[in-house]
């Protein structure tokens, strides 16, 4: 919503002696639209926001410190808790940084299993993101459509690894289990049903005039600012930066797969506004469907797990890997001192930088739009705090 008119009105008020006082409001820590436990200190001038200062740390579980105590293999289930909405990518990040430290090669079939699991997880995560976003804006029904599809993915992933959210599916050197019998057929079944369901979802809400106008022109992020704050993944691409680690810094078997990288174009208003961040995620789900189909066609036979010693002691040194998670480029840094325990682990997540930009982009917007901004950045609070 444009605010030019409102600003003029405020200026006029100042002259007439009807001055308004700035108000400090508290939003959170428990608030339905904060997607976890986090708090905002909002300084408001009437309905206009002057500042929205995020206060994070409520979900700090010292995961980086735990890594130093439990060893390389033992840390895998903890990585699920970094981002429980897209835990596969955390598994993959940890596995990849350990493999880089020790120079382990993952068998081809293992890599394909990883990509299938990750792309299904990406769809599930984006469904949660767009589903809760429409709910935050005030539409109830599409949320159930999104979650119905997400449940089906949870079923598939449960078949794969026994868990619906905290998968603990990957291992250093590959994955824990091969695809179960009939998994490929059931996944194709799901995809055949999902693609029309996504169209239905679009009919229901994506092209809905009220919804579009609620998001268009709200809190646009120009590309230079996005890079300054290190926005990553869909948030970065929504600002028009065509960058995807899967394509531009390829890892795993992504070079063998064909897919597009959707970017924001400002089609509803300004480049990098809330609508662009929303529509990029919708389009990415289609690309993930394409990737899963190709993987199921191309997956070779063979082992899924390399031989890795129980007592895993990578040589001294440090390594940094980046994984294109559902919330974008996720950085995993690990230092090995040659013992069984990592000396230092650091996880730099997409939500962390997305949260840090909120104060800057929400100056001058309406209080009611803050929930749209949080939702459009797809923030998962535990991923910020780790």
């Amino acid at each position, binding site marked *: 919503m444009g605010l030019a008119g409102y600003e003029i009105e405020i200026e006029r008020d100042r002259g007439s002696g009807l001055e308004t006082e700035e108000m400090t409001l508290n939003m959170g820590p428990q608030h339905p639209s904060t997607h976890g436990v986090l708090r905002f200190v909002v300084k408001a001038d009437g309905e206009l926001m002057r500042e929205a200062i995020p206060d*994070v*740390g409520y979900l*700090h579980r*010292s995961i*980086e*410190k735990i890594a130093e105590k439990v060893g390389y293999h033992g840390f895998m289930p903890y990585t699920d808790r970094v981002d429980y909405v897209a835990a596969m990518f955390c598994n993959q990040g940890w596995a990849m940084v350990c493999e*880089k*430290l020790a120079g382990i090669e993952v068998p081809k079939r293992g890599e394909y299993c990883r990509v299938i699991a990750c792309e299904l997880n990406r769809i599930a995560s984006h469904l949660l993101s767009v589903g809760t976003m429409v709910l935050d804006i005030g539409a109830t029904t599409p949320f159930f459509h999104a979650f119905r599809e997400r449940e089906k993915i949870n079923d598939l992933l449960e078949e794969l690894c026994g868990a619906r959210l905290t998968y603990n599916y990957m291992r250093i050197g590959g994955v824990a289990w091969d695809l179960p019998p009939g998994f490929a057929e059931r996944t194709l079944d799901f995809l055949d049903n999902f693609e029309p369901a996504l169209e239905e979802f679009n009919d229901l809400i994506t092209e809905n005039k009220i919804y579009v106008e609620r998001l268009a022109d709200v809190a646009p992020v120009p590309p230079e*600012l996005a*890079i*300054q*704050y*290190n926005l990553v993944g869909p948030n970065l691409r929504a600002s028009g*930066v065509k*960058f995807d680690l899967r394509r*531009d*810094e390829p890892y795993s078997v992504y070079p063998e797969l064909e897919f597009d990288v959707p970017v924001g174009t400002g089609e509803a208003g300004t480049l990098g506004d809330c609508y662009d961040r929303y529509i990029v995620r919708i389009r990415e789900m289609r690309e993930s469907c394409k990737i899963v189909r190709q993987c199921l066609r191309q997956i070779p036979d063979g082992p899924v797990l390399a031989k890795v010693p129980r007592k895993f002691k990578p040589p001294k*040194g*440090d*390594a*940094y890997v*980046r994984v294109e998670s559902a919330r974008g*480029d996720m*950085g995993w*840094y690990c*230092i090995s001192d040659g013992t069984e325990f990592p*000396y*230092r682990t*650091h996880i*730099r997540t997409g939500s*962390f*930088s997305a*949260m*840090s*930009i909120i104060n*800057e982009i929400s100056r001058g917007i309406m209080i009611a739009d803050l929930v749209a901004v949080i939702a459009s950045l797809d923030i998962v609070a535990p991923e910020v*705090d*780790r």
Partner: protein
Amino acid sequence: MDAAAIHARLRERFGEAIEGVDLEAKDPFVVVRAEAIAEVCRYLRDDPDLRFDCLSNLTGVDLKAENLLQVVYHLYSYPHRHSIVLKVTTPRENPRVPTVERVWKAANWLEREAYDLLGIVFEGHSDLRRILMPEDWVGHPLRKDFVEPEEYHGISTRRESLLRS
């Protein structure tokens, strides 16, 4: 541009402030003197051949055996698609490193995190407060000699193991 070429460039421009380089490491890194880090970063960002416009990661590390704290910077360039790692060290007793917040805005929160968990003071930072731990927390938990307190505001931090009963 690869790490060797970037190091040669930095060496030529900053001389003694560039203390070393490791090209054999998994991610080749350049060791920079702490006082010079902000200028080095600004140069890396602005030089047209380097254009490191993205601070991908910033981490603090406690090197207790050497009585040092280390800050590791992972830089990435979107225009040139290359990366470099910088490392600086600072004494453990009085850890001070100039902030790079004015080079990349992403550094603001990342430096707050390194300050919170390791106690590295970033000089010139606009808002150096704790970010993950409570404001009144004592000590920096990722230091190797940190001892977890028995309780916090009357809440015990110990729990009986469920396996023992």
